């Protein structure tokens, strides 16, 4: 089977203006959502308490609210369904530092008489730990972007590095926008998804860039747009295929992986779609934008080759004792 049989290069760069417009709109929309709705920080970063309760039958949320009302510990607690009607989570912004008195036990006491239930999870993150996790998370994000930037600059050229970082920022922004739009709790798993997305999106971009680099070196054509078009077209089958297989698995994870993994899978799902799009329509046009000059690059390569050859010659002379 073949989705894309290469016949002639497709004109991707010709459509880059439309793509740019779409990207800019999406990014602006994402920032608008982030600015107005904001990220919904979960307890990992904001601190707080989560108690997950599973009932034998449908959870009597109304009755639960009634029962918890009197207790000071549950002031401002929110009770929401979690994955299925039987299961709920109680979220509180407060935490308790007492080791022996447990909020799980308190909840069990307080909910007595609301039916047959089981407390399945109690998460408490104190404010200090929450701040630390936030700091560490931002540090991780920053460091991986920096490390990747250095690697790409070293393996390719600085303009490639910039272009891939722009594509990354594009992907992460839109994924975060989607996370804010759907009010997904931002916890450590969402951060992990974002970091995975960094790696994944870059992976895609690099495959295209590698082809562009190959095209630049091999072909006599000096028109960058044409080289890019050909490179993207030639990698199109791979780009779609890998995205498809990855999409398959993340989608099954999203559908069947359970509620706890939901936020992670959702973020990645958005990321894969945006990441695939960006490696074709964002990264390469940026390369054009920065004025990558194929002719200059050729001369540079030629000079480099000459220098190498010269060195080689000197070495040979030295070794055979001519010098």
């Amino acid at each position, binding site marked *: 089977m073949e989705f894309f049989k290469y016949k002639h290069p497709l004109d991707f760069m010709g459509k880059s203006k439309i793509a740019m417009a779409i990207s800019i709109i999406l990014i602006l929309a994402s920032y608008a959502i982030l600015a107005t709705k904001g990220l919904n920080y979960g307890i990992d970063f904001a601190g707080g308490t989560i108690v997950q309760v599973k009932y034998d039958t449908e959870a009597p949320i109304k009755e639960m609210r009634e029962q918890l009302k009197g207790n000071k510990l549950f002031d401002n607690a929110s009770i929401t369904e979690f994955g299925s009607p039987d299961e709920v989570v109680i979220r509180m912004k407060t935490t308790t530092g007492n080791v022996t008195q447990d909020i799980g036990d308190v909840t069990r006491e307080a909910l007595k008489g609301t039916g047959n239930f089981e407390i399945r999870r109690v998460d408490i993150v104190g404010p200090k730990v929450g701040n630390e996790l936030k700091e560490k998370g931002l540090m991780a994000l920053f460091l991986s972007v920096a490390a990747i930037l250095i690697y790409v600059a070293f393996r390719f050229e600085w303009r490639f590095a910039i272009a891939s970082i722009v594509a990354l920022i594009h992907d992460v922004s839109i994924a975060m926008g989607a996370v804010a739009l759907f009010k997904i709790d931002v916890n450590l798993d969402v951060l992990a998804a974002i970091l*995975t997305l960094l*790696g994944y999106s870059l992976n895609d971009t*690099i495959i295209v860039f590698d082809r562009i680099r190959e095209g630049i070196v091999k072909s006599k054509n000096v028109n960058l747009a044409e080289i890019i078009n050909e490179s993207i077209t030639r990698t199109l089958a791979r780009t779609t295929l890998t995205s498809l297989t990855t999409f398959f698995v993340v989608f099954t994870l999203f559908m069947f992986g359970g509620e706890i993994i939901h936020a992670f899978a959702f973020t990645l799902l958005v990321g894969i779609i945006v990441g695939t799009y960006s490696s074709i329509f964002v990264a390469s046009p940026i390369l054009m934008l920065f004025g990558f000059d194929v002719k200059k690059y050729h001369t540079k390569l030629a000079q480099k080759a000459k220098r190498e050859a010269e060195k080689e010659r000197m070495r040979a002379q030295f070794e055979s004792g001519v010098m």
Partner: protein
Amino acid sequence: MKLNYRIVIFALAIVFGVVFSVPSLLQTQGGKKITLGLDLQGGLHMLLGVKTDEALKSRIKSIAASVKHFADRNDILIDGLTFDENSVRVEVLDSDEIKSFDEFLSKIEGAKVATNDSVITVSFTPQEIEKIKKLAITQAIETIRNRLDQFGLSEPIVARQGEEKILVELAGIKTPEEEQRARELISRAAKLELMAVDEDRNARVYNMSDADAASYGDVILPDAKNPKIKYLVHEIPILDGSMLTNANVGFDQNNRPVINFKLNAEGAEIFGDFTGANVGKRLAIVLDGKVFSAPNINERIGGGAGQISGNYTVLEAKDLAIALRSGALLAPIYLMEKRSVGPSLGADSIKASMVALIGGFVLVIVFMIIYYRMAGIIANIALIANLFILLAVMSLFGATLTLPGMAGIVLTVGMAVDANVIITERIRELIYEGKSMHKAIEDGYANAMRAILDANITTLIASIVLYVYGTGAIKGFAITMSIGILASMLTAILGTHGIYQMLESKMNKSKNYRFWFGIKG
């Protein structure tokens, strides 16, 4: 078919993968296995902080106790023995004795002794304060570890995290009651103090405020069984649990559980001296600020043995004895983070992620075969080998599989075929260009190599950063991702290349491009 070095390495890698993943997959008796994370098997994860200021306070208090004992023993008249958070203050009435007092105090490690006329003030040097605080943390880790080792769970984890946090992980906690017991055992200060009841004023205890008591150098403590009953005791204890050498569960004449404890030589001496001098008065046995009993002293008690009776069950007595034996916490601990997962939720998570893993796996496998035919099957062999190697490496290192780790494996399934997609696309291209089977395969691998390496290394960079900065379960994700990527380089690049080389003569003969690569050619 011809053997080549690639296929041999690949075969060895598969054997390695299968052999070492068997213990984990089949849960055999012996062999190294993957441990399930707390989020999958259920358990309790806690990050504890230590109130180090309290450690300083109790050191000050114990200095006050030894000052009192020194004065009593040597018949030195003192007055106004007081202490606050940072220092002990005492007035020595007999000026001839100031020197011997100074000498005694200067022997205390890290103490700063200041004498002003007859008033001596003892405090700690900043270095000593730092040391006391550090010790409080180290000691808390040691103590909690000792206690949990005797609790009866397999492999409790107690470790320092960062400068001043203590990580406690308990796997396999099944019931809320068990969790409660563990938490109580961990956090119990287990601070034993033997204190003298202030018999002159105790009758008035119910009319006294804490401030009144303090003005006499006393403190009001509640009874352990009935908090309404109060005792007025001297604030400076006779001795504390640091002089305890052993504690065991025994039974009294009514067959109720009690705890028998034994003091070391120094403690026995102090205990003997005190009881000898205070016959007819009461001695309060105080544990964590509550009076467990206050028996009358009938005679001098030598030998340094004592008993704590209380209204507890055998299990409670047992836990208490463990806590006393492993020593008091120098400073109280508090909860900074807690994550507890019930075993049923863990089991559900395993089930759900297995469904996702198998579902994703089948989808990818089927899709690869439909799209690439034989090349797809070869890629699938590499994918399966990859999973086995991933499990084997994790088993060998005794790595922990968490729920995010499962997600990492699922993701590996999707991304590991990438290398083969890139290679096969290259081969197809070269075949269209009219290259021979042999040339197409060799050049295909050569052309694809650089892109695969670059792409994998960047993903690896992101995973490693995630591992270094990630915490808890997220680390598990980074581990499975990283191993998956590394294994895919071995299986998808080297392994599949070997298979092609082995099948090359067949492929050359058949020339059926549709069968081999899913294209018309």
